[in-house]
C-alpha cells in the first residue's frame, strides 16, 4: 500500500462547491460500504493526499479525524491510518442510499429538465451499472 495508484483513490474537485473534506468523507464511506476498502486497508497520509491533490492538509486531516470519530478509520501510532476492523459492511440500504442522495437530487433535476420518465432513467442507470437483463 501507499503506492501512487492507491493515492488516486479519491476524486477531489476543489471547485465543485462541496467542501473538500466532505468529498473525502463521502468517498471513504462509500468505498467502505461497498466493500472496496476492507478493514486494515491503509490510507495515504494527510501529507501525501494534500501534496498529490494540491489541497490544504488541514482539510484532509479534518476529514480523517471525522471518519475516525465515526469509527470508520483507525489511527495507528507512527503508521498510516487504516480502515477500522469490526465495522464490516453493516451499513443498511437506506443509509447507503442517503449517501448518494445529493447526487440523485441533481440527477432528478436534470432528468426533469430533459423531460425523462423515471422508468427511462432507471433503465439507463441499470444499463450503466451493468444490471440490465
Amino acid at each position: 500500500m501507499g503506492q501512487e495508484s492507491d493515492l488516486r483513490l479519491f476524486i477531489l474537485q476543489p471547485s465543485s462547491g462541496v467542501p473538500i473534506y466532505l468529498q473525502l468523507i463521502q468517498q471513504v464511506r462509500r468505498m467502505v460500504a461497498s466493500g472496496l476498502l476492507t478493514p486494515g486497508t491503509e490510507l495515504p497520509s494527510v501529507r501525501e493526499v494534500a501534496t498529490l491533490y494540491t489541497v490544504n492538509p488541514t482539510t484532509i486531516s479534518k476529514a480523517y479525524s471525522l471518519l475516525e470519530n465515526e469509527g470508520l478509520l483507525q489511527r495507528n501510532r507512527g503508521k498510516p491510518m487504516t480502515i477500522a476492523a469490526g465495522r464490516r459492511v453493516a451499513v443498511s440500504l437506506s443509509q447507503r442510499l442517503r449517501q448518494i442522495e445529493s447526487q440523485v437530487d441533481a440527477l432528478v433535476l436534470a432528468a426533469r429538465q430533459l423531460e425523462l420518465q423515471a422508468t427511462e432513467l432507471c433503465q439507463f442507470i441499470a444499463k450503466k451499472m451493468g444490471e440490465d437483463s
Partner: protein
Amino acid sequence: MSESLVTTRSLGKRFGNKSVLHDISLSVAPGSVVGIIGKNGAGKTTLLEILLGFSPASNGRAELFGEDSFALSSASKTRIGFVPQQDELINLLTGRQQLALIAALRGRWNAPLIERLQEIWEVPLDRLIQSLSGGERQKLSTLAALGHDPDLLVLDEPVASLDPIARRRFLQEMIALTQERTRTVLFSTHIVSDLERIADQIWILRGGTIAWAGPLDVLQESVVRLNITARQPLPRELPLSGCLSQQVAGVRASAVVSNWNAQLQGQLQEQFAAEIQVEPLGLEDIFVEFHT
C-alpha cells in the same frame, strides 16, 4: 498556540473624506492560511498595509503578535515576510545579488530552502532583474520574503502573473511550507479557484468592509443555491433570511442563501410545502453572489 496572530477591532481607514475600510474586526489563529478576496478597490491592499504597520488605522485597532501594528518592535518585524503587489526588486542587480543583499540585511537566512524553491520554481538567478518576466519577478520576490523563515507570510496577489503550471507549483510549495502549521499565511487574490485548494479561512471584502469571514468549509456549507419546487404557486418574493438573490416563477424558485443548515431545510419544506434541492456553489459563484 491559541494566541491570535493578527487581530483587528473596529478597524477603519479614511483617505481625506473617503472611507476605504470601516468596522473590520477579525482575528487569525497561528497556522491558518487565510485567503482574502474582493473586487478591485475593495480595500484588500489597504487592509494588508495596515495589518503590517505600513500605514496607520484611522479608527479602531490592528494588532500583530499582540503588539500595535503601527508600533511593531523590531523583533516582531523580523517575523514577517511580505510580497507586495508591485515588487521592490532592484533592476540593476541579478537575482542572486538581490537575494544575497536581503540575506545580509536579515542576518538569518534559510539557504537550503531558498535553493530548493529556486530550483522548483525555475527562477533564473544569474540574469539582471530588469530582464525578468513578470512571473519570474514575482517568484524572486517571494523567495526574498521567505528566506528568513517568517512566522507570518503576507502575499498581495501572489499568483497574478504566474501561468497555470507555475501557479500549481507555487501552491504546492505553499502547502508544503504550511504543512507543519507553524507558519501563517495571508494572501489576497483574484484567482478564486486557488483559494479553494489552499485556504482554510476566507475573508470576503466588499466595499471596504467584511461581507463574510470564516472557515472555507463553513462558507461552502452555508452559502448554497436552493432549487424549490412547490405544489402551489409561490409568493412573488420568498421571505428567506440571509437571501442573497432569488428568482420566482410560478411553482418554482431558485434562491441563494448565506445561512443554510439542515434545520432551515425542514422549516422551508414545511412552510412552502415544497421540494427543496440544495445545490452547492463553487467559491467563484459564492463570491459573485455576494456582489449581486
